[in-house]
């Protein structure tokens, strides 16, 4: 009886420790096949192995986030959130560091490794703050020039050349049609639902997303506040932009969303690359 009561008390305690979000991420660097392109990635993985993943999570405004980062790479990385965590954030090879922080406004934020072989190779993810009561989807737009990815990983170069011309365009590091197997990238809902899509651009060039079937309302745009409040079917995400859009579908069906820079929809053949789908039931 006493034991039961204690466990019940502990259960209540754990429930009331709201305002705290904790998770562990592992930095891995390896190469992956993206529709025939053998590309080097650095990834914040939520499991202790290399896999194609763009980590994302949703927290409340003011909630304390405790992220423990374990660096499985042979080189140091950082855990950087612009304006929040910018110093004292180095994680050496095989080290473990826990970062505690919070956001006091609704929005969405990029975290990344601020080294030449970090974000440039995909070491990034996103934290959506607020909008807890709606279904969420997360898109991390990323582009990569295959040879450059190897050079960055091998420390042959640390800069993006002005002749940068990517072959690989991805959403959450997947190229269509793999994107629609990703529950974060494929938007699923019903007519009249309120759906929240958090979108970041961690690539090296701007992307212009076009929605078929719907206009979306831009709720937040970190690089261009003139965009906030607009109802758009096409809008840009500049380099390092983070934005939140609200979709309230008024019709059912399966509709593509893609970069309207048409270089981005050919990865591994057309249609491929930076394309996902919205699938709405009546």
């Amino acid at each position, binding site marked *: 009886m006493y034991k039961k009561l204690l466990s019940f008390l502990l259960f209540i305690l754990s429930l009331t420790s709201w305002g705290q979000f904790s998770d562990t991420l592992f930095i891995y660097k390896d190469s992956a096949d993206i529709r025939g392109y053998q590309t080097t990635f650095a990834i914040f993985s939520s499991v202790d192995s290399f896999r194609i993943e763009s980590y994302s999570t949703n927290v409340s405004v003011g909630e304390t986030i405790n992220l423990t980062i374990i660096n499985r790479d042979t080189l140091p990385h950082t855990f950087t959130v612009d304006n929040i965590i910018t110093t004292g954030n180095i994680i050496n090879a095989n080290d473990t560091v826990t970062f505690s922080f919070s956001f006091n406004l609704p929005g969405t934020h990029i975290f990344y490794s601020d080294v030449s072989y970090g974000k440039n190779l995909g070491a990034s993810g996103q934290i959506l703050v607020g909008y807890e009561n709606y279904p969420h989807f997360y898109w991390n737009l990323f582009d990569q020039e295959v040879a450059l990815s190897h050079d960055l990983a091998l420390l042959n170069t640390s800069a993006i050349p002005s002749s940068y011309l990517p072959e690989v365009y991805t959403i959450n590091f997947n190229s269509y049609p793999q994107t629609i197997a990703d529950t974060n990238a494929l938007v699923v809902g019903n007519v009249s639902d309120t759906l929240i899509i958090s979108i970041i651009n961690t690539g090296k060039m701007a992307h212009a997303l076009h929605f*078929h*079937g719907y*206009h979306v309302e831009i709720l937040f745009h970190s690089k261009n506040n003139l965009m906030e409040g607009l109802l758009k079917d*096409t809008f840009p995400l500049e380099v390092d932009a983070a934005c939140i859009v609200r979709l309230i579908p008024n019709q059912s069906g399966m509709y*593509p969303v893609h970069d309207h820079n*048409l270089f981005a929809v050919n990865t591994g053949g057309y249609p491929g690359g930076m394309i996902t789908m919205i699938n709405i039931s009546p």
Partner: protein
Amino acid sequence: MKKILLIFLMVLSLHSLAQNVKHVFLYTKMDAKHTFYDGTKAEVWVYGYYDPATHQKLSASLPGPFLEFNVGDSVIIHFWNDTGEPHTIHLHGLDVDQPNDGVPNTSYAVAAFDSTTYHFNTDHPGNFLYHCHVHTSIHLQKGMYGGIRVWGNPNQLFSGGPYFYQSSDFIASDVYTNWNTDIFQDYFLINGMQNQQTGMYQQDIIYVEEDTSYLLNLFNIGYSITDFIFPNELNAVVHSSDGRPLPSIHQTDSLRIYPGERYSVIIKPSMYYNGTIDVKYKSMFEDQYHHTNQIWVNIFPSEIKEEKSISTIIYPNPASEYLTVESLIKDQEITVFDTQGKILTQLIFGGKNTYDISNWKPGTYYFKIGNEIKPIVISR
């Protein structure tokens, strides 16, 4: 029972009365030739109108025919794919349903020499686009695109929105000679034209009286980012984008439009101005401009308009190689002075004529037309 049927039929007929059905007849052409500013004639794939009665093909062009509808129209596009490859029409921004979306893998492709109809309603006034969605990177940039304007109330941008007196539509696009993997950008277009071409036709030049609102519908369907640079004299205000009003309007001197975006801008010049809206093209890959095109703008004082109602126009201004004079008045006398007041030439003129001015020295020239004196700048 009969009563119910009668009511049913009445409701049906009311419904069809409320909607204005508009038919559009478009065909495809894959061996069209487009003449670029440097004289190059290159193969483009385009849309054109055809006559439904005779199946006679009318002009096909890059961009394709500019389609205009009114809010509340029920549109049927009769699409005749008279080529050996599949094509579609995607109605970009019109939020049509899945079967009419023109995407091969979620809707369907129209097979070679087949035809179909696309159905949709126009719910919002604004600027939209149509383009082929079969292997878009090739088909679109080969030229299979055009603009769509949905009009609301006459001379009003949208219900509750601003009024305007006249309007022009400008579609920015680009063409790469090597469409597949080479990003070398060969041609940068406004309504299919580049450089001196943009000042050659009167319909592409903005003539606006001072203190008059003039609507610019701007589209980008290229690979490049485009920056529209508005001179301060034009008092350019952005009112809507992608067929929706902005929550708050804003004045602009530089409007960036990404591939697939559209904007509506109203200019209301407060003073005399002769010059250009520059359209600058920037690659998505790197941070530098590759080209600048000009949209020519002539603002004239309101008194002249009242007196003469633009009986004579001279364009482009500034000019470099050619100058076109158009006059509605027969035997109009035009005297050309230099800045010293010296008479250079006198013309008796009527109709439309284009003059080779390539041997005129750069500088300002005054054209006296009746009581009006127009400065024209020659620059190279």
